[in-house]
């Protein structure tokens, strides 16, 4: 069930990415929906699963970008692992904590990709620092919004389940 949910989340991220790119060509420059999926999965705390998900999602993302194939695979593997380790050591309960973690993860991912590009390509093009910061912030906000929405949805479905149980007991 968890695997299915994860696959659905990745498919949804791809769909949001494609729709976003259709609506606004600068979408990929401003937000990275794939990274948000990796980080939110990493926050569940399983480091092995997080690094593997990071690897798969990163490689999918590599399909949609130019440059050497595997840049995002490498970066997202590290991001997934680091996020999971952070979640193991810190108690992240407040939505602002999620915002900080996702923003940090986005900055880390972009730093790793830039580092790799500098090592691998002779005269590479680099992203503007302003856009790096914007992307980190936007990813953080998106992560926060999804985290809050998922929390509300979980609470409401739990309340519905309890209500049903109570009605069954009364009958």
């Amino acid at each position, binding site marked *: 069930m968890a695997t299915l949910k994860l696959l659905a989340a990745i*498919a949804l991220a*791809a*769909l949001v990415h*494609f*729709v976003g*790119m*259709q609506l606004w*060509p*600068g979408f*990929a*420059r401003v937000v990275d929906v794939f990274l948000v999926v990796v980080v939110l999965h990493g926050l569940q705390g399983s*480091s*092995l699963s997080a*690094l*593997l998900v990071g*690897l798969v999602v990163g*490689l*999918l993302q*590599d*399909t*949609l*970008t*130019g*440059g*050497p*194939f*595997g*840049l995002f*695979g*490498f970066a997202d*593997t*590290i991001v997934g*692992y680091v996020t999971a380790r952070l979640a193991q050591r810190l108690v992240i309960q407040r939505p602002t904590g999620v915002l900080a973690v996702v923003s940090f993860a986005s900055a880390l991912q972009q730093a790793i*990709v830039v580092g*790799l590009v500098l090592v*691998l*390509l002779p*005269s*590479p*093009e*680099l*992203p*503007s620092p302003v*856009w790096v910061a914007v992307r980190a912030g936007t990813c953080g906000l998106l992560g926060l919004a999804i985290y809050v929405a998922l929390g509300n949805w979980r609470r409401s479905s739990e309340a519905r389940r309890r209500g049903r149980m109570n009605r069954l007991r009364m009958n």
Partner: protein
Amino acid sequence: MDERRTVWVLIVVLVGQLVFLAVQGARGGHTRAETVGLRLLGPLARTVAAIPRGFSDARQDMKLRGGLQEENRRLRREVEELRLHLLRLSDVEGEMRRLGEAVRYGTPPAGRIRSVDVVYVDYASWLRTLVLYTGDAPARKNQPVLSPDGLVGRVFAVAGPYSKVQLITDRAAGVGGMILRTHRQGVVRGGGRGSGALVLDYVPLQTDVRVGDQVLTAGIDGVYPRGIPVGTVVKVEGGGQLFHKVELAPAVDFGALDQVYLLDYDAVPPKLKENNPSGHP
């Protein structure tokens, strides 16, 4: 699994990926993983791209119904003008052939074009790319991609009906370019800094380059034929000690691409290919 083992898995995965990246850089080609990724994401991208296209087609139909007669008159006029133009060109072509025969000059083959759909384009970010749906007849690696306005790029990876294109605005892309007015050749590259502009390198300082000069493909890179518009000079500076710093605006508006053309063109003669089976120019 305990944390120590996970760390080992992480190290193995990262080292594996680094080797993969290094090997790929040395070979300069695409990988099987990229092919799988394109096959997985291509259909979704195509579906999403088809929705607005359907809406825009329907809107276009509605608009057309209103002005069909006017459109028809305009197109007839245009056809007449194009016929005259074609007559003139045929005359020039015949003259060229006669002159070519006199000096035993072999005209390069023009190649055939085929229209294909763009299903995904990212021209704004710094790692830009374009994905095509080519249908039943897959594209060839290194096949030139054009739009009616000019050169778009070359096919970089092929996965069945989906192909990934390296845009000419990519910093890693290189196109043999030629200034139309002076026939001075250079190398066109992506301008970088996310600007979407191009630069024309290796144009000596003594060369006359002016703002507004048209730059075409020179046909010297073994990928693109000669004469495709690449861009227009928008800035000329005395860059280094030997060469001009020439900035170009691309001929193509990458944001307006929904269909492009694949050019079926063999830049390298078959005899030369036999001696170089790798196909690298």
